[in-house]
């Protein structure tokens, strides 16, 4: 079996002591990031990318992936014990997790979250392993028109799910695309938007923008309001494991959460937060004890936690097989991989098999590590919350500047970092999401290239995007995703125009 050979090769890469070490460091740091309030996976990965500079690409992605799913894991702990979600995808876990903890059942809640994450993470890795090569092989048939439309769809799907206002989110995307046009145009050698500044010829450094918009802006958000709310932390009483009855109730929820999270959050690109809400909705309809949901039902912890981890794993399929990020976090990972000189996409499976399979194997290992690390050490993770906010702020400042400086040894980058930190803060105030900016910035160059190559093939005719079936399908997805908030109003409008009878 070809994939057993590949998997064996992957494990031989992942099980080297140094890569095991990086996986451990990754999940460890990731869990800390997940537990810390305010620092989500996106900020965490942006801040920690500089650590990966000196590493070979395989070790770097193993470390980053560890941080990524470690952070997804860690978020649930604070949801359950403190009622303070570490990130948006563990908001749902608060509903029943905190209620369970209040009833003295924090142990089973934490265990359900950890086991659910483990099952979902392993499932997502398994599917990535089984279908990844097929998806990649299929995507090899894509030409530039398909890629352009696919990127457009990816951009609009993520954007339509970011923030409260579609106009603001789309505006953020165009800003990101505009930032991507700064620097020398590689095809014609013409400088664009450089204003004669030689440091801008290479474009704005991706990491400066990412760390500024996410990490430093978080610092400013905290500084603007340091009146820290005192959080009541619930003690962990009782056993840290599930009873037979818990298992009977949680197991179907794990499965429902994993499947729905994987397809809705991962494959459809809706993201981990939507996945967790979606699976909670399913539990409300399908769980045996649906009346208990919201009052401390174990299904309410098991399903969403499985869903957000399955979604995180599913998003990696887009990143590795298609080279298109399905979320803000994977956009940052894509940017980091490009900085390491790798171009994720369908060719990756053929050209860098030890990289892809090493990563897949390390994800199995990382999931086991998380399960082993998290439950016994839960007391220690919660202690992290004792770090006073002002020290946390100082450390984020420290790491932001250190990370940006080590990239080019340039103090101009530090200044730009500060500028983007302020911009990021203002955007937060205005409720304009920052992740579309990063996505636009990462995809901008690729989209422009694909557009040019497409028009070269068609000799300048835009019809090429609609005459090729897959391209047309992706364009259709793009249109659906940006119009969907308005369907409601279109429906109302139609009814007004034609009267009720016509529509019915």
């Amino acid at each position: 079996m070809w994939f057993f050979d590949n998997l064996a090769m992957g494990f031989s890469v992942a099980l080297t002591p140094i890569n095991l070490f990086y996986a451990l460091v990754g999940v460890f740091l990731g869990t800390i990031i997940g537990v810390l309030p305010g620092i989500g996976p996106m900020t965490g990965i942006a801040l920690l990318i500089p650590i990966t500079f000196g590493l070979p690409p395989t070790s770097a992605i193993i470390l980053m992936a560890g941080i990524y799913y470690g952070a997804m894991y860690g978020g649930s702990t604070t949801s359950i014990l403190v009622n303070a979600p570490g990130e948006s995808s563990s908001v749902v876990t608060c509903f029943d997790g905190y209620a369970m903890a209040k009833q003295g059942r924090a142990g089973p809640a934490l265990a359900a979250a950890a086991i659910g994450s483990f099952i979902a993470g392993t499932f997502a890795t398994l599917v990535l392993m089984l279908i990844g090569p097929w998806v990649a092989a299929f995507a090899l048939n894509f030409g530039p028109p398909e890629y352009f439309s696919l990127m457009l769809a990816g951009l609009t799907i993520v954007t339509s799910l970011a923030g409260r206002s579609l106009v603001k989110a789309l505006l953020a995307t165009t800003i990101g695309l505009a930032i991507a046009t700064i620097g020398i145009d590689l095809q014609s050698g013409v400088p664009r938007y450089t204003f004669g500044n030689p440091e801008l010829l290479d474009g704005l450094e991706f990491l400066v923008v990412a760390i500024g918009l996410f990490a430093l802006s978080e610092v400013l958000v905290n500084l603007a309001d340091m009146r820290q709310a005192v959080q009541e932390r619930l003690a962990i009483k009782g056993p840290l494991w599930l009873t037979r009855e818990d298992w009977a109730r949680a197991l179907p929820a794990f499965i429902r959460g994993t499947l729905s999270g994987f397809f809705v959050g991962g494959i459809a690109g809706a993201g981990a937060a939507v996945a967790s809400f979606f699976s909670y909705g399913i539990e409300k309809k399908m769980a045996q004890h649906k009346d208990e949901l919201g009052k401390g039902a174990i299904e309410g912890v098991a399903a969403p936690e499985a869903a957000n981890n399955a979604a995180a794993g599913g998003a990696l399929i887009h990143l590795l097989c298609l080279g298109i990020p399905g979320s803000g976090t994977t956009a940052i990972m894509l940017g980091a991989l490009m900085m390491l000189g790798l171009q994720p996409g369908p060719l990756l499976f053929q050209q860098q098999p030890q990289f892809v399979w090493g990563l897949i194997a390390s994800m199995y290992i990382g999931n086991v590590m998380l399960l082993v690390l998290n439950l016994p050490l839960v007391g220690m993770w919660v202690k992290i919350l004792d770090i006073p906010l002002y020290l946390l702020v100082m450390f984020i400042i420290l790491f932001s500047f250190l990370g940006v400086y080590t990239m080019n040894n340039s103090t101009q980058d530090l200044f730009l970092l500060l500028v983007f930190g302020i911009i990021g803060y203002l955007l937060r105030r205005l409720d304009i999401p920052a992740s579309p900016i990063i996505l636009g910035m990462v995809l901008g160059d690729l989209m422009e290239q694909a557009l040019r190559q497409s028009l070269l093939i068609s000799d300048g005719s835009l019809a090429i995007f609609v005459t090729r079936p897959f391209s047309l399908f992706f364009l259709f997805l793009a249109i659906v995703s940006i119009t969907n908030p308005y369907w409601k109003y279109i429906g109302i409008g139609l009814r007004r125009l034609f009267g009720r009878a016509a529509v019915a």
Partner: protein
Amino acid sequence: MKENRIASVVFLLVALVYLALAFLTIPKPTVLQILGPDVFPKMIGVVMLFLAGLYVLQSFRGVEQTDEARAAIIGAEEKLSEYVDVKTIGKMLALMLVYVWIFDPLGYPLATFLMFVTGILILDRRHWMRDTIIAVIASFGFYFVFSLVLRVQLPAGPLKWLGL
């Protein structure tokens, strides 16, 4: 909201300037191409201008609909509270600006130590003993780890004579 009105006009201006620069400053390449270097920026500029225009309309007519239930489901970030501690934020921004400025001349360990200690004095000085020790570790300790163990180059500043 006043903030949104100002912001929407700023975005409109940014879009206009971006588009104008695409027309004015991007030179034509010598070899004829189907899609020159100016076309993609012009496309982005037009879309940006359109969206910024919508934003202006929304903010001035106050029709921006926010669906809080939907916002919760997609995990939109919480809106910030209206309260802004201008004094603290201003001091810390000034501190970071000074940090950028002294980063090279004073070297990483010294500049970071000063930044950290000043930051603690601004934010919370009740545990200064403990926090000063943390500052020493975070500046000098990190410097040694990064430059000696990880081999990342950081400016040594006047500490160069220590031979490190």
